[in-house]
């Protein structure tokens, strides 16, 4: 441990929820607004305890609509901000996730996925919000979503989520399943100076010349002034021009804005996307998995190898933008792709789209049990 209270450098034994909170603080998060919900409550509890120690703001809002609105407000006022929730709260947040996408507010939303729909199974794991994370708010927009499969990665990917949100001025969703959120593992928190941090681009023009939604550079991302800095700028959820002026009648303005909001993620997809490839070089059968399911999948692949089956694993760390290229490359080589998910068929649809010619086997799982390595192995053996 160092004297730095924000970055608890050293080895810890933490749950995924707590590691996520520590990752946020290490990434520079100084504003958390939330509302209690199982299985994400521990993130709020940790933030309530930890943020005051380092001069950060914890506020418990009246609901998730308000939590999401408050973190956008705090982001516009200059703080790195986050909220954390689970399915029912994530549904309420969709309204203002759209506002964050539209007004390009950097912020992080953690959704600890439990079983749905509706109130569902609050204490059980699920991966049923994967499509909601991508398409949950109305209208066309792009988003970034990350999925950790260990407590260490809950820390690492929360840091990464903040960096991506600052770099691309976009809300980033950390999609953690209940199992990862509630399991306890060793976490190594590096020294503060070894943690790479990204901060939003600031304008370098005088206030009179600032266009808050005019992209600068190849990445299509506009520099961001904050309230109180003297720029006196306007932002709106309405379709707007580069100056933030509403353009509700202009087809050109609608096309320019919406296409840029999408393209700033699509064109940078290869810089954003992270996957883990295990024994894929000569794989004839492969598993595509994410979150806690990838741990069973890894076991299954190793057991299959022991039995002489050329099996491999493509683990999706970035869920959105979808790793199309990586999946398509895999489909060119593997005879069979197996997709176990804790839902009734979500990411498998994206895989089918990206891997048109491949033979695909989907393994749904609903309820409290995770896929066992044996269940996945059985399919790999049957190929």
């Amino acid at each position: 441990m160092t004297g730095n209270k924000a970055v608890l450098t050293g080895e810890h034994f933490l749950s995924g929820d707590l590691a996520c909170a520590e990752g946020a603080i290490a990434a520079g998060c100084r504003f958390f607004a939330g509302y209690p919900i199982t299985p994400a409550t521990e993130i709020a509890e940790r933030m309530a305890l930890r943020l005051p120690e380092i001069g950060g703001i914890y506020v418990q809002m009246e609901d998730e609509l308000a939590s999401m609105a408050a973190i956008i407000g705090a982001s516009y006022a200059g703080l790195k901000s986050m909220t954390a929730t689970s399915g029912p709260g994530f549904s309420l947040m969709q309204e203002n996730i759209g506002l964050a996408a539209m007004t390009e507010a950097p912020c992080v939303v953690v959704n600890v996925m439990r079983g749905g729909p509706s109130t569902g199974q609050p204490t059980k794991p699920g991966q049923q919000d994967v499509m909601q994370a991508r398409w949950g708010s109305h209208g066309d927009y792009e988003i970034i979503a990350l999925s950790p499969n260990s407590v260490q990665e809950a820390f690492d990917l929360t840091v990464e989520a903040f960096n991506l949100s600052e770099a691309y001025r976009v809300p980033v969703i950390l999609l953690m399943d209940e199992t990862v959120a509630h399991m306890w593992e060793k976490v190594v928190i590096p020294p503060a100076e070894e943690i790479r941090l990204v901060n939003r681009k600031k304008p370098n023009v005088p206030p009179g010349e600032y266009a808050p939604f005019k992209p600068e550079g190849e990445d299509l991302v506009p520099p961001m002034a904050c309230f109180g800095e003297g720029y006196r700028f306007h932002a709106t959820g309405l379709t707007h021009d580069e100056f933030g002026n509403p353009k509700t009648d202009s087809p050109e303005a609608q096309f320019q804005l919406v296409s840029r909001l999408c393209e700033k993620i699509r064109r940078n997809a290869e810089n954003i996307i992270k996957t883990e490839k295990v024994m894929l070089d000569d794989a004839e059968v492969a598993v595509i998995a994410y979150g806690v399911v990838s741990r069973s999948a890894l076991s299954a692949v190793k057991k299959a190898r022991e039995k002489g089956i050329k099996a491999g694993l493509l683990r999706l760390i970035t869920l959105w933008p979808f790793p199309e290229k990586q999946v398509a490359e895999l489909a060119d080589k593997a005879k069979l792709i197996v997709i176990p998910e804790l839902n009734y068929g979500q990411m498998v649809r994206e895989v089918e789209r990206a891997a048109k010619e491949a033979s695909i086997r989907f393994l749904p799982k609903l309820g409290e049990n995770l896929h066992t390595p044996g269940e996945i192995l059985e399919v790999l053996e049957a190929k």
Partner: protein
Amino acid sequence: MTQNENLAHPMEVFLRKSRIPHIWCSGCGNGIILHSFIQAVKELEMDSDKIAVISGIGCIGRVAGYVNMDSFHTTHGRAIAFATGVKLANPELTVVVISGDGDLFAIGGNHFIHAARRNIDIKVICANNFNYGMTGGQQGPTTPLEAYTTTSPYGNIEHPFNLVSLAAASGATYVARWTTLHVRRLTASIQKMLQKRGFGFIEVISPCPEIYGRRNKMRTGLEMMNWLKKVSVIENFSDPAKAEVSRDRIIIGEFVDMEKPTFESILYQTIKRVQEGKGR
């Protein structure tokens, strides 16, 4: 000084000229409310760089785009929740929410009562025009009983909110109601609220002749202003629960002006205590 500079409107510096003309109808009270607000800012000689104006959705919601200050036009009902994030992230800012009765008290009602309960230092100015103007005049949480709107074609069957009573009961430390006829009092009241710390609320009864008035026997802005003149009664610091808004009588004035620790002051004291190692 050139001739053009001589002709500049005295309030021009507070407005985004590129956005004028505004979208509001003839006879609408929103312009008066905007003018009162910037007049108050001007007279107090406040630094416009340190004011953030947040609005929701609706006719008055466009006000955020017109002021030459940092401003955000949020989603419907969420202005106060957004403003909570702004205020806590940068307590140096004067955070003003200007929005309508439907936005603040129907879809946004929960945020209003909780912000008032916390006594966070946010100033709320509500244009109450008794209906949803922007969508063409539907019944809302302040529409008087029996009034005609497009969704109460047989007369409104719902009891309206008494907004000043709601604000007072929820914990607001400054509460007033004026009409757009009472411009000087309204401006003075906004000044007073801007100078106080804590959750402040001013309801401004605002004419909507084009959308609401014409369905309720008041076809012009002048008729609505004459009505306000006829029925308004100033009763400062009377019981807000008895401060009626009806066709025959509108009680206006200040209702609450008290001191109570603000949310952010308690929050920052707590942070200080924790940082000094005296957290618990």
